[in-house]
């Protein structure tokens, strides 16, 4: 079955605009606390445990979690479902890293600061290329997913829906900075959790487990096969993709800098634990598709299709579309706002410091920050207009981010390294990882693993072959 248009486009406009006004209003309200650049970019470095854990968890609950986790469960079965949840280990492992980051960079603002000081201008340029490609691809896929979902659920034309979601996120990020992002993330994460719990409960109440198991054995046996090659390899691939994303991206570093020093490690660890079961709950619904008699016509929409089916079966009618719309809108918004803020901060802080060799004066900071945020949003909007299948760019960027795992660890903990070897390793890992992604002999499910492995070998070599003392971080 395809997603039925469960609610009218006028109702959808009302719901989205109400949520939009709420987010923007809260953004302005919270944004009043942002008196200076540190307040705007890092929420005054004073975020506590509850907000810190919630913002980290909500940012990790992207539309990918509610869309890709079910897709992986539907195509790779039990291992696919568990494999996606291992991305939580990225957050769990970032907890000790956050402690070290706060210790060595007490005045740090972005992950770019770290790369520039540890790996010089060349290292910073390589990092910026990787992170901008990855972050823009992520932003664009989120806005495309938003437009497509609104279209599928409500009939709102793609361009209108995509623009609506982006404008709402740009507005509250613009007014409130990280204060607004963290605050809205907290509310959004609660809504997402409640939504997924309801869907999971409905699936459980409508399925007979032994019967479902028998049906899967007959028609989709590989989904239950503990030795399914694609799924087994995808576990490591997804885990390393997650490590690479969390370890390098400014979305996470900005949160580490924004939380109180003693809170950061606990908040990341807690958010990892909270996030861990979410893909399993979302994926379980997808595995149940066939036993529930749901025909999947579009694999990217397996989650919403099953959710809609079980809610309609439960007699929830129009509420089905409404709940799915709200949960998906919150998932997408919680990622778009974080990416907008973190990418804008990276450009604002790093480009001004490392390219123009200037620091933005406090008096004009809000104006410049606004221009950068709107520009990033505008670029995202322009690149989302053609509805490119850019999701492949995002997926194939797995080896790019995985190639940064070991350079981050080495830069944080090691005292001596051979910088040129590490930088050569990053480039090599990116190239061979992307090659593996498209190779018929290896496949997408090995790409991040190949990238991380090559980078690991070269980084370890760099510790022993003519190592030089690392640059001191001021």
């Amino acid at each position: 079955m395809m997603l039925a248009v469960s609610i009218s486009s006028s109702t959808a406009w009302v719901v989205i605009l109400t949520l939009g006004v709420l987010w923007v209003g809260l953004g302005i309200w919270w944004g009043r606390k942002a008196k200076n650049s540190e307040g705007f970019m890092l929420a005054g470095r004073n975020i506590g445990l509850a907000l810190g854990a919630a913002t980290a968890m909500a940012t990790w609950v992207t539309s990918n979690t509610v869309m890709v986790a079910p897709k992986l469960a539907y195509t790779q079965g039990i291992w696919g479902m568990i494999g996606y949840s291992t991305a939580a280990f990225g957050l769990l492992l970032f907890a000790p890293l956050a402690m070290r980051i706060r210790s060595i960079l007490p005045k740090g603002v972005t992950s770019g600061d770290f790369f520039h000081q540890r790996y010089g201008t060349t290292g910073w340029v390589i990092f910026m290329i990787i992170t901008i490609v990855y972050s823009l691809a992520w932003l664009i896929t989120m806005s495309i997913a938003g437009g497509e979902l609104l279209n599928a659920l409500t009939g709102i034309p793609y361009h209108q829906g995509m623009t609506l979601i982006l404008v709402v996120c740009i507005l509250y990020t613009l007014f409130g900075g990280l204060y607004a992002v963290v605050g809205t993330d907290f509310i959004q994460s609660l809504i997402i959790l409640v939504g997924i719990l309801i869907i999971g409960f409905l699936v459980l109440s409508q399925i007979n487990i032994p019967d479902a198991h028998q049906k899967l054995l007959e028609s989709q046996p590989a989904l239950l096969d503990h030795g399914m090659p694609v799924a087994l390899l995808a576990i490591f691939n997804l885990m390393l993709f997650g490590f690479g994303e969390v370890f390098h991206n400014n979305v996470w570093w900005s949160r580490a800098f924004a939380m109180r020093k003693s809170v950061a490690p606990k908040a990341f660890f807690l958010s990892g634990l909270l996030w861990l079961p979410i893909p399993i709950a979302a994926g379980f619904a997808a595995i149940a598709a066939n036993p529930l008699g749901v025909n999947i016509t579009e694999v990217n929409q397996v989650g919403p299709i099953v959710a809609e089916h079980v809610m309609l079966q439960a007699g929830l009618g129009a509420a089905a579309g409404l709940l799915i719309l709200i949960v998906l809108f919150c998932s997408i918004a919680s990622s778009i706002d974080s990416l907008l803020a973190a990418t804008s901060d990276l450009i604002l802080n790093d480009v001004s410091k490392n390219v123009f060799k200037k620091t933005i004066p406090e008096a004009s900071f809000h104006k410049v920050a606004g221009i950068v945020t709107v520009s990033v949003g505008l670029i995202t909007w322009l690149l989302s207009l053609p509805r490119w299948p850019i999701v492949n760019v995002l997926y194939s960027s797995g080896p790019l981010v995985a190639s940064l795992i070991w350079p981050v660890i080495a830069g944080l903990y090691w005292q001596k390294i051979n910088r040129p070897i590490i930088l050569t390793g990053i480039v090599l890992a990116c190239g061979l990882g992307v090659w593996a992604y498209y190779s018929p002999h290896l496949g997408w499910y090995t790409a991040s693993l190949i990238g991380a492995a090559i980078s690991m070998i070269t980084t370890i070599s760099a510790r022993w072959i003519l190592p030089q003392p690392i640059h001191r971080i001021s």
Partner: protein
Amino acid sequence: MPHKGPQSQAIVDINFFVSKPRLSKSVLTGLITGALIANIALALEPPKLSCKLPKNTNGAYACSDGVIDLKWKTDANSQFELQATNPVNPETFKHRYKGTDQSSVLSGLAEGTHHFRVRAIHADDSSGPWSENLTLEVTYMPASRVRLLLILGGIVVLATIGTITFGYLNHRGKEGEA
């Protein structure tokens, strides 16, 4: 979305022809017969089953992840029935789907050869002819390569976790040290 099918094409407003005196009875009969023949021809035409996977040297579609996105095209306004064989029972087609959708993503397919076919089921429960069989060969990555990559994955993940743990323990309490 309503499909333009044989039923809709067969609806002919007789009054339209009767009110046109210049149309002879034979022309009217010819038009109606033509419409009926076209309708029957459409009903007899099997759906065209396709997928976007590449073909291997045997001429069969090939995949390495056990997933196929099947689509079928027809002008018939009907329900459809999709059947498939599996490598264990290659001669026996089993029911996979019945409904109005014109596509289906099948996943978790076992390694080996699968055949798929689809046909239209009309409102009166009569069924149209089966489509041509679409053959898919699922070949998963060789076990030796999987083992090698799994070992590599295990080493990379354990080394990453180990190095972070060692670094954490080694630097714990060393505040402000760069």
